[in-house]
């Protein structure tokens, strides 16, 4: 029992989920509430667990490219990309330079669409419907790029072991540049709105705070860590593909709150557009795939910077074409647990806003 204005207030449990209008995928939160304040949160996962890692050990190495594309829709390029890197590490495969550029291009196109979706949903959660609709329309510019270049709006199917499965010609490049110009004409305005609009600031600044020390302690990654001032980005920390040859800034914010995380994502959209332009400018000629050797017995790790943060793959082979073990750890995995810190003493009305601010991916978490 605690007291507010001398009136005893009882602590009670508020169940949210697993099926709830504010959640796009099922997750169960048992929130302990006193009055309008959250005291603690307990998370129960497993409502859509698909046993995909067990499934990966029943399929051959090529089939697993298709399987990993289907772990999650928003990260559906990062998964096969990182998986292929793990296979290439085991077999010492040198991916052709053009293929490396195209892989990064697909990755950054997905990052732009993913981040715009998340900050758009944030506007939806706080009730700023006109901004939400506008964000989804702006995101549609990148969705058109995906549909035109890859033939699909979500699963790009861009990667294969040793290279890529797609190519761009002069007409496609012109189209992509045209779409980037369109997108950039909106980005300045959007960033200013998120930075300064009183309605957004009122609902998001100081909400769902997690400090730098806690972010490190919980092993947070991606925009959630960078929003708390942790300078970490796998593209910079552990270079892969052609990222060392590209100029981009690692965006960080110090606030550690919902607003800081949204601003990191918007800053990264700007950086991703910059990266795609560099790729278009520097794209070399050459083959799209490497000649594949037999995959030997061994073990390898690989990691990449997915839209939500560091994505990690571990692969173990025995010389056959079916992996002994394929394990992946998604960025959301650690970010979930940190909700305990972010939701401490927050208002009940902010719960869904804070959950959205970690850009949670349930299908990624429950492989």
């Amino acid at each position, binding site marked *: 029992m605690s007291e507010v204005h001398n009136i005893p207030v009882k602590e009670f449990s508020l169940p949210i989920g697993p099926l709830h209008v504010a959640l796009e995928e099922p997750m169960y939160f048992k929130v302990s509430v006193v009055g309008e304040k959250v005291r603690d949160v307990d998370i129960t996962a497993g409502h859509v667990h698909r046993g995909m890692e067990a499934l990966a050990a029943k399929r051959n190495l090529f089939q697993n490219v298709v399987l990993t594309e289907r772990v999650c829709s928003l990260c559906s390029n990062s998964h096969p990309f990182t998986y292929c890197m793990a296979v290439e590490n085991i077999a010492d495969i040198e991916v052709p330079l053009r293929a490396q550029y195209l892989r990064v291009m697909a990755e950054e196109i997905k990052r732009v669409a993913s981040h715009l979706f998340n900050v758009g949903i944030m506007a939806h959660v706080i009730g700023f419907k006109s901004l939400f609709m506008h964000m989804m329309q702006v995101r549609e510019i990148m969705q058109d790029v995906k549909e035109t270049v890859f033939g699909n709006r979500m699963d790009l199917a861009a990667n294969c072991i040793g290279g890529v499965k797609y190519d761009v010609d002069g007409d496609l490049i012109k189209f992509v540049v045209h779409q980037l110009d369109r997108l950039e004409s909106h980005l300045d305005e959007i960033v200013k709105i998120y930075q300064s609009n009183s309605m957004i600031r009122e609902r998001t600044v100081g909400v769902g705070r997690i400090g730098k020390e806690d972010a490190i302690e*919980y*092993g947070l990654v991606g925009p959630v860590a960078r929003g708390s001032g942790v300078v970490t980005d796998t593209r910079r920390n552990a270079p892969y593909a052609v990222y060392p040859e590209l100029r981009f800034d690692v965006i960080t914010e110090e606030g550690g709150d919902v607003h800081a995380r949204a601003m990191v994502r918007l800053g990264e959209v700007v950086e991703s557009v910059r990266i795609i332009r560099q790729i278009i400018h520097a794209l070399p000629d050459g083959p799209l795939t490497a000649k594949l050797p037999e995959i030997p017995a061994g073990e390898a790790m690989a990691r990449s910077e997915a839209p939500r943060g560091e994505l990690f793959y571990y692969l173990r082979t025995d010389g056959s074409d079916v992996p002994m073990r394929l394990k992946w750890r998604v960025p959301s995995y650690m970010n979930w647990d940190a909700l305990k810190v972010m939701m401490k003493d927050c208002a009940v009305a902010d719960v869904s806003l804070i959950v959205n601010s970690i850009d949670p991916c349930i299908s990624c978490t429950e492989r």
Partner: protein
Amino acid sequence: MSMLPKPDNKDSQTLDELLDKACGVAPTWTKDKAGNNFGWLRFHKPDDLVPAVKALKDCGARLCTVTAYSDKREDERHRRSIAYHFALGSVLCTVTIPAYDEASGEALEVPSITPYFRNADWNEREFQEMYAIKIKNHPNPRRLFLDERIDAGIMDELIPFSSMVHGASSKDLWEQVMMEKTGYVPGKKEQEVLVEPAFTPVSETQPKAEAATADNSVAGKTAGEAQS
């Protein structure tokens, strides 16, 4: 991945020295095409893990994730190992322990590292229920994904639906079907030739009167058709 005789960047050199000092064993090192270093260290007892984990915590390493796996397929799949993956800057280092006694094969409990790395909590709970590995001193050993009523390690017991519907079955099933249908005996080289039973033609069992009527009607019809 190419083997490295010695680690070739600052972070991997730090890890190499620290682990050697803490455990008396230095990792082996490999390098990928982008120049990232990977350290690999395998212990023979689960309890050897703790000094290595303490050293990694002290040098500011981050736990990336934990992978439990079966050392071999099928018959010896109950022999589980656990690989703990750590990151320090651009370097990844994997420390592996067996979750069994290497001499007898008997399953052993493994120490929890959640007291040292907060984010080990979910990882340990996951391999506890997915691989039925027991953990010592875990601060919160509740189920994470699977319901309490489901056995730990259940994924090993399941046959993928795709295998089932594709008829990917042992040959025992098909031999049993053939035995029931044809008398086929597995392993017996000279099989008896299957002779189908002979059936009596239906016309032979027709009563004679009916047969005669049938003959007339056929004859009459033929005659009428001839007149027309």
